[in-house]
């Protein structure tokens, strides 16, 4: 590295930093975010959390009800992810370069994945809420649509990556399309796919809370009710339950991942 390139890279760094600073300034102006105020609220907020968000004897009485809702939410996320995985498996097979049937289906699969992924879960749940009403199916469908988009992209990538040579070998033996998929592609990609499915289940449990607040179902709704009635002890309990649930799911999926990958 001679002096000239070093000077050039130094200039690049300076310009880059300037752009970041300008963008930060613009963003804080447009969102009316005051950095000092914002940072100052952190200790205040932490203090408030420790003094008010306490689980009391009284709120523990609500535990069975909360657990029931939490159960519903977790089951909903798992169901949405599993069914989405089945759909994504087909879309992924159509979309991947190695296993595509024809170009039209490939583009179609990628298009569906891209649209359903890029419209946020919030938009889906608000759209579906209009006609499906306040029940678990709305939340389920909202999570389902978003998950299909994400998993299809992940599956396409893992199929593309894994199975090129095995597919060629099976083609050479005269295997049919179905045989290639079931004997080469799926066995090879399955651990990777399961890892993605587990990741999505975790994400969906967290998203389900958000969807629940919007569609008035599951644990999100329970949280919202206590939050709006200023029952902060119950809010703390709900949050605590969600944390425990997510950590347990995290632990199980980490174990599975360690074994299979």
């Amino acid at each position, binding site marked *: 590295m001679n002096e000239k390139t070093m000077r050039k890279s130094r200039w690049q760094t300076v310009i880059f930093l300037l752009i970041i600073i300008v963008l930060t300034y613009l963003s804080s102006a447009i969102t009316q975010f005051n950095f000092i105020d914002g940072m100052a609220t952190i200790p205040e907020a932490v203090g408030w959390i420790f003094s008010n968000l306490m689980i009391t004897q009284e709120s523990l009485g609500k535990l069975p009800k909360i657990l029931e809702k939490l159960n519903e939410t977790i089951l*909903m996320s798992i169901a949405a992810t599993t069914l989405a995985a089945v759909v994504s498996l087909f879309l992924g097979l159509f979309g991947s370069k190695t296993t595509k049937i024809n170009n039209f289906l490939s583009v179609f699969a990628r298009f569906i994945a891209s649209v359903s992924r890029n*419209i946020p879960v*919030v938009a889906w749940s608000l759209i579906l809420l209009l006609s499906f009403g306040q029940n678990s199916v709305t939340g389920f469908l909202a999570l389902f649509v978003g998950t299909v988009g994400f998993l299809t992209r992940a599956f396409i990538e893992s199929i593309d990556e894994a199975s090129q040579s095995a597919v060629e070998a099976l083609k050479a033996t005269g295997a049919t399309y179905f045989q290639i998929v079931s004997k080469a592609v799926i066995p090879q990609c399955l651990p990777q796919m399961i890892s993605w499915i587990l990741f999505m289940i975790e994400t969906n449990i967290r998203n389900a809370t958000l969807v629940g607040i919007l569609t008035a179902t599951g644990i999100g709704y329970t949280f919202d009710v206590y939050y709006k009635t200023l029952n902060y002890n119950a809010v703390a309990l709900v949050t605590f339950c969600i944390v425990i649930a997510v950590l347990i799911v995290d632990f199980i999926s980490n174990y599975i991942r360690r074994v299979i990958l």
Partner: protein
Amino acid sequence: MEATYIRRKNDGRINIRSGNKVDQVVRWTLILLTILTIVAFIFFNYAGLDLGSAITETANNLKVMFLEPALSHFNWGEATYQVGVTLGLAFLATIIGAIIAFFLSLMAATNLSNVWVSRIVRVFVAIIRAVPTVLWVLIFAIAAGLGSEAAILGMLFHSIAYLVKAFSEAFEEVDKGIFEALQATGANWWHIVKSGVLPSTFTYLLSWVFLRFEINFGVAVAMGAAAGAGGIGFDLFMASSFYFDLREVGFITYAILIIAFILEGFSTRLKSRYFPATSD
């Protein structure tokens, strides 16, 4: 490897699926997921659901949304401004998160800090990640008041957790030789970070930050809708839950979609440039 002997089925054929641990775990995971899915469908709360009419209605709604988008409660300028607010929220949460995450990940990387500090940071990050973003925002909203402060602080937490994981993994992959070479010249810890670790991982870190920005845009939309943080998400919430104006919902969805496509295009290019081998 365990001792090899040929397992046979009852009729004497050789069992070609010898059933190692990986296969078993994969099978059990799939069986369990299937069972849980069926159980979920049995326990769903189907209150007030008429599936047939709901599906036709949704199809109809989607048709109106996507084919006849229009604005009625605000104009183009206002829409652009609100998209700007959402982008601004996402940007601030990402950039502040990246700065904090950088220092935390120096503490979390096993080759740069001691075992206990690294463990404590990791546990801390795991707990932060377990609380959904919307709950962080709502909890902060009580203390800081509704507005951009609460939203950014809430989003900050998950950004930090995500980036600490990505950054510390990047730091751990830095070649050991670089450390040794710098230590041999008498560099202290900060020198090593500044002239060894940072230059060799910088582009990598930058791509992660951009990926997080893409995620944060979606999160910012969600926070606008669910936690009143403002921006285009809030308009989306108002249009669909208060005005029931499908044409406006369609317009807002298009706006979000366009921004998301642009961001995705950028990050795909970054990915193919800096992460040629990995898929994530």
